[in-house]
Structures are given as structure tokens and as C-alpha cells.
């Protein structure tokens, strides 16, 4: 195969990997994915990042270092500014290529595509084409790659919204979700890169499942449901992620489809600090559905998280029997 393109298994990987992989494969490139987050990656990231950076960014830098050491020719670090009109990603995702370059020494060349749907779609396409040009393919391949990528991304979205899969399920090749409808229904909300990173989240979702819960996440909701749920809050969030989280939280509450909500935030995350606060206050004030907020940082002990999840699920079971 051709050029080896490294993709860090962190941050937006959880949202867009199917599209990225399809895109690069269509361009005859080989995709090198960094391994699942582990202790070494975390430690490397913590060493490289500025102290105050949020945990997910630290982990991202750790993955970059890992790809560098594995000899990728090129590392894909997109600048995803916005994927919808009037919405943004977080400032750190906007500045990710620069953070990467300035924090990790000895990186190979970075492929930084700017995706900004606040501007015209044509502009985004031309950015993608420019990125594709690096791979030296026959004319027309770029267009084909873009189409294939967008198809793959759609399939991914549908598998989650219709099939009830989580990103982690899909990315790990799980085909269908086995849901048992008599189980406790628990919503889990947070950044995809927090809740689906097994190491970082200490597998919160898996643990909830083991405790007998059926987990529902934002990805399983339709676009319209999220929009309807957002109306519970006075201002629409200008972050894509914030919009999804508020929308899902509002929708869960309005429809009463969950019995408990687990909010997962990461230490040092700006958006989380306010969005999770809005949700917590909304739920607490109405006192119908209990909320558990878990803040992940590099020192979070697994035992503590397990204890809190167990206590939470116990409480939900007890509520189910008595209410």
C-alpha cells in the first residue's frame, strides 16, 4: 500500500473514524490507527501537554507520540471548526493542529484539513480535495473518496440511531445490540471520547451493563429528538456536543425513557463544566430522575467509580420497586 496515514484513536476518532478510514483507503493510503488508550499513552500525554489541558487533549497528544514512534508517514490532525451552521466545536479542537505541533516534538508532517460548515459546503469540499492531493491519485479519485466517506459516515450514524449501537460497539465490529427490555434504563451522557474510551472512562458503560442496566446514549437518538429535547433549555447551545448533550438530556426527561442519568465529564473541560451544570440543575429541580456526575481525571481510581456506580444502580433498583 501507499502512504501510511496515522490516525490517533482519540477525540473525534469516535465520531468520524468510519468516514476517515474510508476516505484514506479510497486514496490508496494505509491507515495506521494508534492502539486503545493505555497507561503509557496517558503518561506520555500528561508529560507533553501543558498542565492545565483537559484530560482528552492530553490523551490525544499521547496517541500522537505513539503514532510518531510507529513510523507513520503522515498524521491526520483535522481542524474541525464546525459541522453545522451556527455551531462550533471546542476551542481546543479548533486549535488542535497547533497544539499538536507545539507540544509533541519530532512529529512527522501533519495532514490538517479544515472542516468548517459555517462557511459554504463548496469550501469544505475544496479543503478535502486539497488534502487528497497529497496522495497523488488519478483525477476523480478525490471526489470518489469524499462520496464514499460520506456514505460510510451515514451508515455509521444509522447503525447507532436505528440499531441502538454505541460508537464503541460499531467501531469494534459489534453487529447488533442485545437489549433486554426488563432491565433498568440508564442514560449515559458525555463526550464520545470520554465515555467510549475504555481506559479513560474505566469502561463505565460496560460496568453499568454488568450491573444489569440497559444504556442509552445520544447517538441512539434521532436528530429531531435531540432538537425537541434542547427546547427544555432556554438557549440552544452553540457547541455541537453541547447541543447533543442538552438535547438528549431534555428528551430523556421529557419522555421519561430513562430511570437514571450518568453524566461523565472530564477534568479541565470548559464546555463540560457548564453544560453538565445546566443538566444537573434541570434534573435536580424536578426530582424525578436521579443524576450521577462522574468527573474523570488522571488520578481517578477505578474502585471509587465502581462503588459509586453500584450505589447508584442499587438506588435505582430500589426506586423501581418502591415507586
Amino acid at each position: 500500500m501507499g502512504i501510511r496515514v496515522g490516525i490517533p484513536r482519540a477525540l473525534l476518532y469516535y465520531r468520524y473514524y468510519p468516514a476517515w478510514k474510508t476516505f484514506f483507503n479510497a486514496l490508496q493510503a494505509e491507515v495506521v490507527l494508534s492502539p486503545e488508550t493505555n497507561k503509557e499513552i496517558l503518561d506520555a500525554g500528561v508529560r507533553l501537554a501543558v498542565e492545565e489541558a483537559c484530560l482528552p487533549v492530553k490523551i490525544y497528544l499521547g496517541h500522537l507520540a505513539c503514532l510518531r514512534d510507529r513510523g507513520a508517514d503522515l498524521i491526520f490532525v483535522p481542524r474541525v471548526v464546525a459541522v453545522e451552521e451556527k455551531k462550533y466545536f471546542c476551542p481546543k479542537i479548533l486549535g488542535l493542529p497547533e497544539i499538536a505541533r507545539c507540544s509533541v516534538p519530532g512529529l512527522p508532517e501533519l495532514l490538517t484539513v479544515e472542516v468548517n460548515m459555517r462557511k459554504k459546503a463548496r469550501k469544505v469540499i475544496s479543503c478535502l480535495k486539497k488534502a487528497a492531493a497529497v496522495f497523488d491519485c488519478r483525477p476523480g479519485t478525490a471526489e470518489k473518496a469524499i462520496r464514499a466517506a460520506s456514505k460510510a459516515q451515514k451508515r455509521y450514524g444509522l447503525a447507532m440511531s436505528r440499531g441502538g449501537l454505541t460508537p464503541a460497539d460499531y467501531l469494534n465490529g459489534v453487529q447488533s445490540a442485545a437489549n433486554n427490555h426488563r432491565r433498568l434504563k440508564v442514560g449515559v451522557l458525555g463526550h464520545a471520547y470520554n465515555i467510549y474510551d475504555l481506559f479513560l472512562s474505566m469502561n463505565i458503560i460496560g460496568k453499568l451493563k454488568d450491573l444489569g442496566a440497559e444504556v442509552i446514549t445520544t447517538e441512539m437518538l434521532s436528530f429531531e429528538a435531540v432538537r425537541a429535547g434542547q427546547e427544555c433549555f432556554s438557549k440552544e447551545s452553540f457547541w455541537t456536543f453541547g447541543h447533543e448533550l442538552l438535547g438528549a438530556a431534555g428528551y430523556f426527561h421529557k419522555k421519561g425513557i430513562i430511570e437514571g442519568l450518568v453524566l461523565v465529564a472530564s477534568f479541565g473541560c470548559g464546555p463540560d463544566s457548564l453544560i453538565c451544570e445546566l443538566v444537573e440543575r434541570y434534573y435536580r429541580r424536578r426530582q424525578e430522575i436521579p443524576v450521577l456526575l462522574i468527573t474523570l481525571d488522571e488520578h481517578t481510581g477505578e474502585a471509587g467509580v465502581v462503588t459509586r456506580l453500584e450505589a447508584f444502580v442499587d438506588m435505582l433498583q430500589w426506586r423501581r420497586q418502591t415507586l
Partner: protein
Amino acid sequence: MKITYPHMGLLTIALAGFFQDIGLEVVPPPPITKKTVNLGALHSPEFACLPLKINVGNFIEALETGADTIIMAGGTGPCRFGCYAQVQREILRDLGCRFEMIILEPPQGNWQGLFRQLKRLRGNCSPKMLALAGLNLWRKLKAMERLHKKSLKVRAREINKGDTTKAYNKGLGMLAEIKDPQAIPQVLRDGLGLLEEVPKDSNSQPLRIGLVGEIYTLLEPFANLRIEELLGDRGVEVECSAYISDWIIEHLVLNTLRLPAGLAVKKAAAPYLNCFVGGHGRETVGDTVRYARRGFDGVIHVLPFTCTPEIVAQSILPVVSRREGIPFLSVSLDEQSGEAGLITRLEAFLDLLAEKSKKNFQLSRKKSLFGKIGSNAGKWR
């Protein structure tokens, strides 16, 4: 309707006059104290950025002193500020406060919402009165900023510690009192005169330091632990990269008219950060480059703990510092930051700059603190 608003450096003083001019009853937020900050921090989310917490403290105290309507600005992202008002409203509501909040959201093409909010404020004041009050606010603000700039130069050279601050505060007080806008130029001259009269050592060649970073912490002395005074007292000449009047021109005038703004800073930042990252992230990088090129001895970067745009900048600054040859010190601030810790770090930094430039500054203690620099400053060596 008794309105109040959050503190933000000099703007607070100018705003009180403005609202009075348009015939509104104002309850200015009581001066920020340690208690304000603690109160705000107690009721705010733990990881919210410092300005949000101080705002909450201001609101609680102002509501206690009789205000019933809060005016707050909105925003459209990508930094957290655009989310502030909504979170603050929920916090105050859960505390059982009785109030109304008027949130001025930037129009984004839809002017109606903003007009409706402004109309509620305007009451029965005529457009002419409004324009006059606006002009008055603007001129007062500009005058106070002139005074501020001058004070930074004078303080570095004063002979008796504290003279400049005294003169500066007196000048500000005189400007705040003005009722008739015609008097502004004269009062400004008087204020500048007061600073002129401060006995100075005219031979001194002070270290020059540029202050960059997040705008609230740059502008609100309580939030930045009066870093300008701390530096000035040690004989350092400080220049602040942000003034609220520039911000108003850029964000409220040029951006609304879709005209280009801040080109020089953007150009300076371009080799290091060539895109918008929210807040003042890009300006921090650009201003650092510009201070380096103007031959400043160092740059101090102030940011609220966990401020997202500034963390982007902070990640880039070590490279800027190395390539442009300017040392920098990042000072991140939260409700627990104390003066003693800051002084230690500042003096270590000054020591380093003095070593490099062969200029002198006045240590408050005799012992040199070389080598005791915090983790952020360590990186550029």
C-alpha cells in the same frame, strides 16, 4: 426596575454613569472583595472559569443591596462566555433570588431579539438621549484608559511607593464623578497632571513587560491580584494588551459591520496560530509576537484556570517564546490564587529577565529566587 451588572475593570465605573444618564435606577455591584469571590465560587460549578464565579458573587451581592434586574452579555461561542448568563440565571434561581435577567445576545443576523431587549432597557428615553449617554460613556472610558496607560509608566519610576496608585485612584474618582460631559477633557488633564507630579527617578531604565491573555483577567484588577501594581512596585514598566474600548470597537462595531478587525495582531499570530480559537487565544499569541518585536523584556500571560482559548495559546507560547526570543510566564488564576504565591513567581521571573537584559529591578526581599520558577515558565529555557 433597579438594574445591576457584573464588574469588569474600568467599564464598571463608566457603565454606572451611562445607565443613570438614560434615566435608569442603578445599583452598582458592591466592590469585589475576597468575600465576593468566595460567595461566587461556592455557588458556581467547580470547574467554571473564574469570571463566571466572580460575576455570580457580584450578582448575589447586588441583589442583596436592592437590585432586581441583571444585565448580562451573551455570546455565540466557541468559548464558554456565551453560556455564562444561562448558567448564572439557573444558579441564582436555585438560590431563591428574585430577579430578572436581561441578556444581550449578539444578533447573528437576527436583530429583533436584541432590539426587544434593548427596548425594555430604554424605557421612555429618546434616541437623542441614548446617543448622548453613549457618547458620554465612550469619552469617559477613553479618558480613564488614558489615565491607566500613564499610570503604568509612572509607577515604574516613582520614588515613593504607592504615590502613583494614590494619584491614579484620585484621578479615576474625579472622572467618575463628572456629570457634564463637557468637563471630561479638563478633568482628564487634571488627572494626568496628578500623575505628572508624582516624584520620579527619571534616569531609571525599567524592565518592560507586556501583559497578554484573557480579557476579563487582564481588565479586572481583583481577578489578576493587581498584577500591574505588583510589577510596577518592583520598578517594572507594564503594558496591557487589551483595553475595553478596543474590544468595543472590534466586536461591537467592526464585527457587526462585517469589517476586518485586529489585522496587525492576526498577522503577527499567523505563523503560529492562523485561525480563530475563541476568546482571546489568537490575540495572546499575536500580542506576544508583537511585544517581542518591540523589544520588550518579557511577557506575562494571565488566564483563568481551565480557560479553553488560553490553553490553546499556552500550548503554543513556548514555541513563540523560543523563536521570537522572548521569555514568558503563564499565570493561571482561580479563587484560590493568592498574592504571596504570585509574588514569588513574579520575582523569580523578574530575576531571570534582569539577568538576561542586565537591567535592574527592586526585589522586595534580598534573597534571589532564581530557579524557583513554576512549571510553565520552565519550558522556554
